[in-house]
């Protein structure tokens, strides 16, 4: 084996390990990404540590989406949205006494809807959300965000409620540019930079850079191991000094 082919083999192994490292960083960034809670019973403000969060349950998200969002087209204007919401309201909504508080029927309707969906096999919750309703009820803020479509986002035709920033973190496959390999972890959400760096009005909640820093040693270790393995399996007896910079 020539030195060039050995170098090629090692570089290929290192690039693959870099891709694995990017996935590690992606997972770390998703762990750190701040997610505004739209459900009652979850701590506010919700910055990190999502142990009590129920938004990981996709069936809950779909149920709420079906309950509130299906009649409304995301492209509709605000006035049309309002009209559609009003058209879909049940008769027990007392229009003479509207106030800022979420009506009680929302909870009843949602739970009833979830119950019917579960019994019909449309939804299979990971846990018994009917018997533990509090954590799956929308908070006042969450109800507003769902109604106003602010909490809705979609990927490849699937609509989700909440968790947009966390759901839109991706690791790209490593790209090779000459003798340089790069793997990017991106967060294309429009407000991601405001969360990462903060603004005059909002404190920063960095999620990409902490993930990269925390994973640095692990990524270096992965690349080092991949390179060593490639050098060993190639049958080469050459002594190789490896310098990894990330």
């Amino acid at each position, binding site marked *: 084996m020539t030195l060039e082919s050995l170098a090629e083999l090692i570089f290929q192994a290192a690039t693959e390990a870099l891709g694995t490292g990017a996935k590690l960083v992606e997972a770390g960034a998703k762990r750190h990404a701040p997610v505004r809670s739209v459900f009652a019973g979850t701590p506010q403000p919700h910055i990190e540590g999502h142990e009590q969060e129920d938004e990981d349950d996709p069936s809950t998200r779909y149920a709420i989406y079906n309950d509130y969002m299906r009649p409304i087209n995301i492209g509709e204007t605000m006035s049309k949205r309002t009209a559609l919401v009003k058209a879909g309201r049940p008769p027990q909504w007392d229009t003479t006494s509207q106030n800022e508080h979420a009506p009680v029927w929302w909870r009843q309707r949602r739970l009833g809807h979830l119950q019917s969906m579960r019994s019909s096999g449309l939804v299979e919750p990971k846990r018994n959300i009917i018997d533990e309703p509090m954590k799956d009820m929308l908070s006042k803020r969450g109800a507003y965000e769902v109604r106003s479509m602010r909490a809705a986002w979609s990927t490849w035709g699937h609509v989700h409620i909440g968790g947009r920033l966390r759901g839109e973190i991706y690791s790209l496959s490593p790209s090779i540019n000459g003798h340089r390999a790069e793997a990017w972890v991106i967060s294309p959400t429009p407000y991601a*930079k405001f969360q990462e*760096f*903060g*603004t*005059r*009005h*909002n*404190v*920063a909640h*960095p999620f990409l*850079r*902490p993930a990269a*820093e*925390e994973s*640095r*040693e692990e990524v270096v270790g992965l690349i080092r191991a991949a390179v060593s393995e490639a050098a060993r399996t190639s049958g080469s007896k050459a002594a190789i000094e490896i310098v990894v910079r990330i």
Partner: protein
Amino acid sequence: MTTTSAPIKRAIVQKLRASPALVAAIAGGIHEGIAPRKIRYPFIVYQLVAAPYSYTWSSVILSPMFDVWVYAENPVDANNIDALINSALAEAALGVEEQATMLCRRVADLPTGPDIDSEGKRIYQVGGTYSIWTEQPGS
């Protein structure tokens, strides 16, 4: 017992306050995370980004990263103060309690556009990320 990144924060603020030119330039003071709503411009905001620990046989190395921002009503002030911050912190020997400073340098400029504050004023946000390495005896 390992000390945390809190003494490093204090050391950064002390170092910034030790620069008379910088203190004279910032009317709104230095704040962590976010500044109060009604405060005079310009001012500085700093924030811990990440603080990974590395354990060696005999010591603990902290390598925190801090974002240090200037908020000002015009870009000239913002950039001038940012330069003052950089000169105060670049390769500075921070007096961190129970930790020896190994490195303090700016590792990135942070690109952001102008913003509108709660009173409708256009404000400029300029800053950078500083990487600091400290070492302390391990437990």
